[in-house]
């Protein structure tokens, strides 16, 4: 079972669904825990964050009433999505992630080597996504409420995250809308935010040729989803005794997660950065050492012969392109 | 002109050698009987007859070997070690090599003797407890194989890959060899294997006292070229085997000692006079 092919197929379908779904009158609501950007005209469902930021832009008092209820409702829907698919949203659904994977395909096709972070760097920057998430919650609140008597944030801060989010610039392009690639001069805040967006977009195009899923490691959506890691129905299990710590998994992991290799005791391996792409399970040569489960039912298990099959065996006339 | 005789009474054979002031006149080898003194007497007699010498021509007789004390008529007796050394060094001198190590494999014992440059015994190792690694072992082997002792060497040289004989005891080795024969193994391989197992044991003795060139190999089995080769392999050196019958070296040595004694005796007399 060559999961990476299945995955690409699923990702492609989801991409079409989310980016062009609107054309087929598909609407999965606007609470999706994935970067299906709300700035796309023909999208089949909207990213949760934009609505989330708007909803938070209220005087605190109002959260005790309808506004609060509505917020809870929205978060509830989000949580429901998140619990069912868990991180698979990132690894299998997210259109932006799909684009990055495609860039990686292109890179490997050209034959550019992937480069990895030093361990310290990797761990140091892990917190970025959480910081972004917290900011995304605080900024709208700061717009509608004055904290410690400070003046409220100017309106330029509205949907601040969307302004820096590279998905806003890139995804609408697939709807033929390039207008999102702009710099806003109307105020210093807007100027900075939109320029950040442009810079990140530039990084998206360049880093794709040296790293896998570079931006995902800083994605607040990943952070938000990682709150449901342990209760998610889809999950990644590990049998420490069967693991030889051969390091194949952590090397193949697009997110450069080391726990999956180092852990011998922990069973649930959906770590904060995991996107459930199941690459690790694919490259695991030990029987039943790694296992992807849904509601506890194994759906994909590592095995020796499976590994060798995926490595293109048995077979003489295969080229290295296969892997 | 005075004559001297050396008698070496070994477990298997008795050797007698007669020399005069210069060289060896003759020697004789015969199996040791039950009454070794008579045998010795008789052999000596026969030898003198051969040499057309009168019965009493022999001035001094020195006996050596296991039965040396049983020879009443001997004027002196001496340990086979010294006798062996004496003989070996003499033969060495003849061939112009300085013997530093002597390997003597006898009928039921085997010894390794280390000499210094002046031919004086430094150290020696001896296996007289066990028949394995002695001529007797080879003889039993021949008996089982039904071949002649003298053929052994040539036969063994044909072997490509010898069969290792693990049993260190002659008796067990015997049964082992029989089983090997039963399994239709090449005789040559078996014999060669036996040679190597003997060589191995001897080599271990050599190692104990330390090997020095040149190595002098004598005793009956020295006639066996297969054993010689095995030893040379194990010791990683050439062996010097005296050209003439190598088992009499000890007897010759004894004779030489007899001569020396007589010379010394004369000197003594001269002094007293």
């Amino acid at each position, binding site marked *: 079972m060559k999961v990476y092919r299945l995955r690409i197929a699923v990702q492609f379908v989801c991409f079409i669904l989310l980016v062009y779904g*609107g054309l087929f*009158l598909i*609407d999965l609501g*606007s609470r999706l825990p994935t970067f299906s950007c*709300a700035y796309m*005209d023909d999208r089949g469902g*909207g990213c949760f964050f934009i*609505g989330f930021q*708007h*909803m938070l*832009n*209220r*005087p605190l*008092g*109002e959260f*005790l*009433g*309808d*506004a609060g209820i*509505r917020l809870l*409702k929205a978060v509830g829907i989000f949580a429901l999505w998140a619990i069912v698919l868990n991180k698979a949203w990132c690894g299998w659904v997210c259109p932006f992630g799909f684009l990055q994977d495609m860039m990686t395909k292109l890179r490997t096709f050209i034959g550019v080597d992937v*480069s990895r972070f030093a361990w310290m760097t990797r761990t140091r920057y892990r917190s970025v996504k959480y910081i972004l998430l917290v900011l995304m919650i605080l900024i709208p609140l700061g717009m509608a409420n004055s904290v410690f008597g400070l003046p409220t944030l100017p*309106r330029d801060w*509205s*949907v601040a995250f969307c302004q820096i989010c590279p998905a806003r*610039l890139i995804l609408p392009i697939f709807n033929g809308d*390039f*207008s999102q*690639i*702009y*710099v*806003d*001069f*109307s*105020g210093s805040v807007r*100027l900075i935010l*939109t*320029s950040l967006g*442009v*810079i990140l*977009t*530039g*990084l998206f*195009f*360049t*880093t794709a*040729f*040296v790293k896998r899923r570079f931006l995902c490691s800083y994605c607040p959506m990943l952070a938000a989803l990682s709150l449901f890691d342990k209760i998610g129905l889809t999950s990644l299990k590990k049998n420490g005794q069967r693991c030889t710590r051969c390091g194949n998994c952590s090397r193949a992991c697009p997110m450069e997660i080391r726990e999956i290799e180092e852990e011998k005791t922990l069973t649930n391996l959906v770590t904060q950065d995991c996107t459930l792409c199941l690459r690790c399970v694919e490259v695991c040569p030990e029987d039943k050492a790694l296992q992807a489960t849904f509601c506890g039912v194994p759906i994909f298990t590592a095995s020796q012969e499976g590994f060798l099959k995926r490595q293109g065996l048995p077979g003489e006339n295969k080229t290295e392109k296969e892997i | 002109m005075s004559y001297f005789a050396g008698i070496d009474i070994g477990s298997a054979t008795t050797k007698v050698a007669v020399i005069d002031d210069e060289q060896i006149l003759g020697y004789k080898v015969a199996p040791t009987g039950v009454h070794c003194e008579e045998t010795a007497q008789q052999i000596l007699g026969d030898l003198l007859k051969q040499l057309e010498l009168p019965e009493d021509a022999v001035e001094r007789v020195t006996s050596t070997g296991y039965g040396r004390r049983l020879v009443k008529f001997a004027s002196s007796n001496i340990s086979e070690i010294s006798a062996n050394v004496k003989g070996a060094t003499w033969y060495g001198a003849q061939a112009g090599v300085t013997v530093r190590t002597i390997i003597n494999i006898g009928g039921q014992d085997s010894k390794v003797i280390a000499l210094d440059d002046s031919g004086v015994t430094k150290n020696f190792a001896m296996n007289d407890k066990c028949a394995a690694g002695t001529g007797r072992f080879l003889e039993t082997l021949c008996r089982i194989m039904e071949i002649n002792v003298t053929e052994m060497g040539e036969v063994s040289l044909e072997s490509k890959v010898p069969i290792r004989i693990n049993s260190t005891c002659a008796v067990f080795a015997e049964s082992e060899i029989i089983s090997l024969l039963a399994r239709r193994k090449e005789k040559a391989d078996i014999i060669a294997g036996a040679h190597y197992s003997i060589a191995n044991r001897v080599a271990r003795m050599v190692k104990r006292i330390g090997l020095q060139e040149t190595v002098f190999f004598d005793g009956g089995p020295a006639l066996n070229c297969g054993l010689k080769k095995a030893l040379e392999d194990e010791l990683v050196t050439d062996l010097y085997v005296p050209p003439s019958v190598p088992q009499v070296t000890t007897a010759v040595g004894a004779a030489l000692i007899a001569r020396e004694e007589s010379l010394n005796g004369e000197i003594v007399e001269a002094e007293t006079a």
Partner: protein
Amino acid sequence: MRLKAFAFFLIVGCMPVGAQSREMGQAAVTGDIPMWIESMSWDEIRAQRAKMKAAMEASGKREENRSSEWKGRDQAGSAKKGNEKKRKTSSYMRRTYYIRSGAFPMLSGGIMSMKSDGMGHVSMKHVAKPQSNDHERMSHGAVDHGAMSVSGRLESGRPQTSMNNTVLWVTFPDTTVKAHKPKQRGKTSTVSFPSGDGGWYRLFAYNDLGVRDGTWVQLMSHGAVFAHGDEPDERKQDAPTGPGLFEGRPILEIERLCHDHDACYRAHTGHRLHVRANFKGNKLVNTPVTLTTGQGWSQSKRTDANGEAVFTLIKEDFPDEIDTRKSEMYLLTLEHVVEEMGMLGDEHFHNQRYVATYPLKVYPSRLDWESQTVGFYSLGGVVLVAAGAIAVRRRRRRLQA
């Protein structure tokens, strides 16, 4: 600073539109005083809140500063426990709509300096049942409204227009239509209703001025506000009847036709404004529709055979300092006179005059403050720089190895 300069250059780049605006002749609002719905400016709301808060603190009530303006009003009015309860249960986002009448533009008052409050936009859109996509699209930059309260107030210092007969029709997202008679409370009279569902709340103010020297004058204005949230699943198609309505729809209606949704959602200068005039369900042909800008420039057009008229939202001159939130109030006015005798109560009239207005908030064109050119250039720049950096780094590492 340089960027500012660039921005200014861009503005200059857009000047032709401005120039065009100059060419338009000035035309006064003809006939009787119009009435229009207008959202209270955010500044005003803030000010009001502050005032209320101050008042409350003065009275020593520190707790429950949840929605101070209610507090304040209760002090003004009679603070009933019941009222308190009711209001606690559903926290209200107070939005105030003036139903103004008088000469447009008013040369005083908060119009010119009006700032949108970012809590949604007053705009009209003729979608009884917005499609999900539209719904989403409308949501840009908007935020839920707990509820709405509409207050009319009498403008002093202007030719008096009685607000006694004013009715505010609110069409809820589920298309139920409710009439609200403004309740008199102190100087202002307010109507409030919870807005649970998401979607468009269309306001239609109707004011029957009665017969004035033989003319039955009826003023009406349209407005709408979008509320976020989940749309109602079932819709009640009822055609209510009542003052100002004809078969559930305004008697005289300025219907805005939306081709470009974004423009409909947020009007920028340079956009086209496409309207249709309806009277009692039929299109009004060859009737003058007047667009008046906040600075008094106006342009009249007659509706064509389909009763439609197209305006180009001309550019007003904004200050050099570009402020995208600076918007102006434009007003569409439509008058219709029906030569028809009749009785209203005991008064005779020989013709009926309908004045409908369509207030419109116009923002400067995006082009004035967004630059895609710069966007693309800087994107390219970033890509090049980053790529170069990476290449250099790799090379160095390879040399090390």
